[in-house]
């Protein structure tokens, strides 16, 4: 545990002393809840359509595959015309593209970012590293199956996949969302214990709250 996360006694400017427990006081500890589709069918279908046509990707690249996302913003591939945009903050993003191998250190950040995204949210695994470890299958420091740690909606195979493959993958994701099958956030909430146990098994210096909002 890092020093700044330990319990300590702080003296306020007015001389009153009080105890601070950063993990408890600075974070909300409540676990995620399952949020089923709340509206009648037709409204929910409208929303699903809107969610599919307006996919905001979290700008977070993990492995070599991150380099294949950049061309999507350029004139040659221009993903914007499919309603796909990049957002710099997890709060506003809906889609988390895990772009390749995830070292354990990055996994920690990926989990925190994922948990800060708002329901409904989707995860796409890019490249063979996210499926079975790919060419890092015997590495001591990367995870092998992304699905054990975060609920993946869709894999895009290849090492590394071309931008066209990504575009095709996004179209497939849109189909899933429209059909109401991309419920990764709820799966995460339902299986929360299982995911947490898996995550804690590989992350040894676990110095964050169990759920970051």
């Amino acid at each position: 545990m890092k020093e700044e996360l330990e319990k300590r006694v702080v003296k306020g400017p007015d001389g009153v002393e009080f105890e601070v427990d950063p993990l408890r006081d600075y974070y909300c500890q409540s676990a995620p809840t399952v949020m089923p589709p709340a509206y009648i069918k037709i409204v929910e279908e409208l929303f699903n359509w809107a969610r599919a046509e307006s996919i905001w990707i979290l700008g977070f690249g993990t492995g070599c595959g991150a380099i294949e996302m950049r061309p999507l913003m350029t004139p040659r591939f221009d993903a914007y015309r499919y309603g796909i945009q990049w957002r710099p903050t997890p709060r506003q993003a809906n889609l988390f593209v895990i772009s390749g191998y995830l070292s354990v250190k990055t996994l920690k950040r990926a989990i925190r970012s994922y948990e800060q995204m708002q329901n409904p949210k989707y995860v796409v695994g890019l490249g063979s590293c996210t499926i079975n470890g790919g060419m890092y299958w015997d590495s001591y420091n990367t995870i092998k199956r992304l699905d054990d740690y975060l609920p993946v909606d869709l894999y895009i195979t290849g090492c590394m996949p071309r931008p066209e493959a990504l575009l095709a993958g996004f179209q497939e994701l849109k189909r899933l969302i429209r059909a109401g099958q991309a419920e990764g956030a709820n799966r995460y909430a339902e299986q929360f214990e299982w995911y947490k146990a898996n995550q804690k098994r590989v992350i040894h210096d676990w110095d964050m709250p169990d759920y970051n909002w």
Partner: protein
Amino acid sequence: MDFDWIRIPYALLTLFIVFNYGLLLNALIAKIAARVGRRHGIPIWQNYIDLIKNYGLRSSITHGAMYYLGPVFRLSGGVGLLLFVPTIHGSLMFANLSFAGDLILALYFVFFGTLGMALGAGESGHPHAAIGISRGLSQVTAAELPFALAVFSVALQYQTLSVSEIVAAQQGGMLNWTLFTNPFAVAAAMLSFLGSMMRPPFDVVIAPQEIPIGPPTEYHSSYLALMQTNRAIFPIAKVVVYMNLFFGGATSWPLFCVKVFLIYMVSVLVGVVFPRFRVEQSVRWFLVWALPLGVVAILLV
């Protein structure tokens, strides 16, 4: 004072028209900017979809009351600005709730949203939000000075504080526009306009790359959707003020659309050509270039 109640639904109708026009115009401008970069750009109805999606997100978290009120303040800034200036000159239906002295109120509303946003985003506690706000407030303040001077100059010129009377004084041919009768005021105001539209070279506040989008970093779901609504209304409302003060107002909706588009395009054209200023550069730029013009405008009247 007797009040025509029918003005309220009329004002709401204006709001509705402007809201839709704003959404489409924003998308169109994003498309133009994309074409400059030789991209295809977003579909023209993309903003509607984004809006529906953000209202349709299932979860949202709050950081406290001010956080909650931030987008509300911002939206009321935009709506207020729109409602208290006449949109279409000479039409009772779209004169909105304008009254004598509304010029001062309009000035106030221009700043109102920024302040509300500052309070709200400050409570979100995100360091990027704090950086964005300090940048935003200093830049908007600097940009506001020449505009205020220009407005006072125009008010002196026409001896009134009512936007409708200013518009009325400019009717009858292009040469009656403030643009030609008081060019220095218009120049100062247009420079300040560049600064307040949050487009390059003055978009360091929301700095899409280095500090993830500044003040709204922590905003999401319906909060963000409220702010997007405001994004559609506020620029148009501001352009309407400019149009009324400097470019002779509009007497019909088609004319309104054309004029608003052209005035908006000024900032877009500048935006796609020039790279971004840092805050201290832009503050200096406003003080060196725009402010003297404003002072000259006041002195000449």
